[in-house]
């Protein structure tokens, strides 16, 4: 529900404000909700406030989950699983399904 965009801090303005970049845009961001920030931090910003520092994801955990899913799928479908083009229905199919949602 809440739009939040990653930014990178380029300057600390005062004890509760920093300048941060999202893409090519530079904006003032409030840092009240974080205990400490420094230049170079990657932050997640919602409605002008940093709500969390972003950290490197632990790729191994996701990768192992991925392996698990892959292994599970292999036990389910002996034939190669369908790809996007096969399961991508036409416009009317897609819209029909949206109607049910």
């Amino acid at each position, binding site marked *: *529900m*809440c*739009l*939040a965009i990653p930014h990178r801090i380029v300057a600390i303005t005062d004890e*509760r404000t920093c300048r941060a970049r999202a893409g090519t845009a530079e904006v003032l961001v*409030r840092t*009240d*909700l*974080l*205990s400490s920030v420094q230049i170079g931090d990657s932050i*997640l910003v*919602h*409605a*002008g*406030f940093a*709500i*969390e520092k*972003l*950290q*490197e*994801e*632990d*790729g191994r*955990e*996701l*990768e192992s*989950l*991925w392996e*698990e*899913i*892959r292994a*599970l*799928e292999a036990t*389910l*479908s002996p034939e190669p*699983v*369908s*790809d*996007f083009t096969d*399961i*991508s*229905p036409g*416009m*009317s*199919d*897609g*819209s*029909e*399904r*949206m*109607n*049910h*949602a």
Partner: protein
Amino acid sequence: MPERTVPFFGGLVSRPTTLMEVCGTHTVSIFRNGIRSLLPKELTLLSGPGCPVCVTDQSEIDAALSLASLSGVTVTTFGDLLRVPGRDGSLLDARGRGADVRIVTSASQALETALREPEQQVVFLAPGFETTAPSTAAVVLEAAEKKATNFSVLSLHKLVPPVLRVLAADPELAVDGLLLPGHVSVILGEAPYSFLPERYGIACVIAGFEAEEILFGLTELLRQIHTNRPTVRSLYGKAVRPGGNVRARELMERVFLPVDAPWRGLGVIPSSGLALRKEFRPWDATQRFPLPTIPAQEETGCRCGDILTGKLTPPECPLFDNPCTPASPVGPCMVSSEGSCAAHYRYALRGTP
């Protein structure tokens, strides 16, 4: 994000399965990326009550409209709230009639407006879930510190776990898995959702918002359902700490108190809203201004509650298309441009099923 080396969903959907995304930003991303068109037929994806702006109740908008009609009052709020209708039109309509309604993109801009224009009474209409409420809290504290006597807040904040509790307790709700709101979870962490798998057997995933992250999240839900081991799993570890953002929650708790709150289309949900605590009364718009006692929302006949939970399809709602349309919406499913009813309306209008 691991590289997509196998198709999502593969053979994981072996029986009709219903998943729900509980977050308006997921809804938007699912729509913008055309994700529904990629889902296998047996998989139904419902849009839950996850847009905090869209669930702002008619009675709350009526209160905002009565504030906007006072002379000397400037009403500030986020852009998406302007279209949400009250009984007597929306804030956009009020602006058209001459009310001073201004869009801000942050609560702090609302306070800045007050500090810049001391002769105006500036009210910040504060919608939003746990993601947004801490920022309002920070600004209330700042207003108190700066003794800004011309600034106040009308809290429309809502809380996510209570509404999930209501949904999950509904015996007719047939949802197998929930894509949990990623940015609410940044604040709350994972713990508040544990009752969902434990008590109701509902699979739960906290996911990011890129198309690939959503597809990965849906796949993980299907895995949990398939193996019959529901749990709360976060795939959004780059932003969500297991314990959430403690500092943000402390700020929120310092300024606000949980209260019963009305949700558009869902009715009053116990302890699902936030009111300013007594000590912050000077900045509470409900204390500063003589707001009429807002009657509970009139019976509109809106069936959004049933549509959100998948019990009805949009055309089965008696209000669909007359009088409820995207240009004059009644319930949250039509208020949100990506809501189920608004999406359905667009197709119906354009002469396709």
